[in-house]
């Protein structure tokens, strides 16, 4: 029935029903909008998707590793590193595992330790002249443990100590790599595709 066809007697009732339905629709939509504007998500989700404060979406990945062994991050050892790579990595390929974005993470379960660890990493910078270097900041369980500047495209082996204080009472080692000079893929490309390093091998030794 068209609006104009309503009779005088039915009009008020239909009007009332119509306004009630419109009100219910509006209320439901406002309520849903309210929920959507206040997402009920964890910090990792919020940081990556909502606030965009990180390019590395933290996940519950934990790799197994026994200190004293060198793990290759080239394509020949892909399976072993898969569990360790939390986020911010691409590959592995023949020349290593490439960092992706402005930071990357590795996480591994460790046996109880009496002292600190010595980390030895073989890495190469991703360069695009005129930029021929990459700064890298490595933190372990939230504490900065190493800062370096990689230059040229040849691989460099770096070694540093992870103090016992940052490992004490922790069942896992969460290593975060930050790249202040990561190179964008193009002028308008998302920073999730930035490139900084190629990680080729990783080793921890108990001190």
């Amino acid at each position: 029935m068209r609006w104009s066809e309503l009779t005088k007697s039915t009009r008020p009732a239909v009007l009332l029903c119509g306004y009630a339905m419109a009100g219910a629709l509006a209320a439901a939509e406002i309520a849903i909008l309210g929920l959507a504007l206040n997402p009920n998500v964890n910090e990792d989700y919020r940081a990556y998707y909502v606030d965009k404060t990180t390019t590395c979406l933290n996940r519950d990945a934990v790799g197994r590793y026994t200190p004293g062994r060198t793990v290759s991050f080239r394509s020949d050892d892909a399976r072993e590193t898969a569990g360790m790579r939390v986020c911010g990595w691409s590959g592995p390929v023949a020349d290593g595992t490439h960092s992706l974005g402005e930071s990357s993470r590795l996480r591994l379960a460790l046996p109880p330790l009496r002292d600190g660890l010595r980390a030895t990493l073989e890495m190469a910078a991703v360069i695009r002249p005129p930029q021929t270097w990459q700064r890298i900041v490595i933190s372990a369980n939230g504490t900065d443990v190493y800062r370096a500047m990689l230059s040229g495209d040849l691989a460099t082996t770096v070694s540093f100590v992870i103090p016992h204080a940052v490992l004490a009472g922790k069942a896992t080692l969460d290593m975060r790599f930050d790249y202040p000079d990561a190179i964008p893929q193009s002028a308008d490309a998302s920073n999730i595709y930035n490139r900084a390093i190629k990680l080729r091998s990783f080793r921890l030794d108990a001190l």
Partner: protein
Amino acid sequence: MPSGRVEADLAVEDLARAKSGIRLTVIAVATVPLLFLLSGLVIRYAAFASVSPDPSLAVYARAFCKWDCTWYVDISEQGYERFPIPGHSNVGRWGFFPLYPMLVAAVRTILPFSTIAIASVASLAFGYLSCLVAWPLMDKNMRAYVLYCAFLLSGPFSFYFATFLTEPLFVLVTSCLFLALKRSSYVAAGLSCALLSATRVVGVLAVFAIIIRMFEEHRAKGGSVIGFPRWLLGRPDLIIAILISPAGLFAYILYLYVTVGDGFAFVHVQRAFGRVTGNPLLFLWEGLSYHPRPGWQPTAPQWSALTAIVALALSAVLAVRRQFGAALFCAMALILPLTSNLASMVRYVVGLAPLTMLTAVLLSASKPTFVVVLIVFVATCYFMTVAWLGGYLALV
């Protein structure tokens, strides 16, 4: 014979002739898209057989399922992920809207066929129905209708209407919406818009076309511009039509809030696809100027940018022809994706029914043009299908 009897006989004869004419028109309107549907199937199969070592029908259906199609297959079969996404992935399926995958999943519960087989047949059926709905929208212009049917079902981009992409459903529901508006059936238009908003995110923008049509009706009845809100508030049926228009989108937002915790997950997940917002004009310029290698052939970004520009120009033509609602809807549905980049621009343009209908009307203005364009449409179907099967980037 008395003159009254003769007149009556002539009137009956005229009526019979008119009835027979109507019957012929109905048969033509139903048969034309059917013929193009069949010819499209044959041409696309020929293109497929020319590039595939296995010409079986199962492989044929799967071969057309490229790019976004695989996401829709996954949604239809597995639904949406919660967070964290299984497999340590950043990329959830949340960016792909649920109506079409839901329909296919519903049919799959009844019919014992694969998802892609059901979706392929559904897409073809939606394409056919879109043609039928277009007939009254094209003012029963048979030449334009034939071109439109050829374009959708046997044309250069007919592969979009032969696989699991949202375009077939989007075109059908858009056509239903504009038909409802043409008949001033606002609640039907609102319900169509609700379905459209659950099909693709830009579907919700059709609400502006509904409001514009209401405004036009108000003005046609002698109402003033200032008096429009008051007139609207006095008509709860119109308010319901407007408020029900985004219902599909709101239902999806609520679903995402309940499952993921983020109602806007479909927006936020774009980060994982590397989409960054920017100036549409800059994206267009970058696309147009992207020609890294020598040669005359346009690159994929150049095709995408050119398509977007032509589509925006066609939107302007719609406005000139006083189809303001359709013009605004199409322009907004183009500009919104253009704020991220040129990806899928060709597909988005093909999926905007008012633009393709207008193109068909313009190209069928003269008989020679009509014949040439019809031949070009059918001939390019083969080559564009080969390009789609080969993964040509402009067609993504």
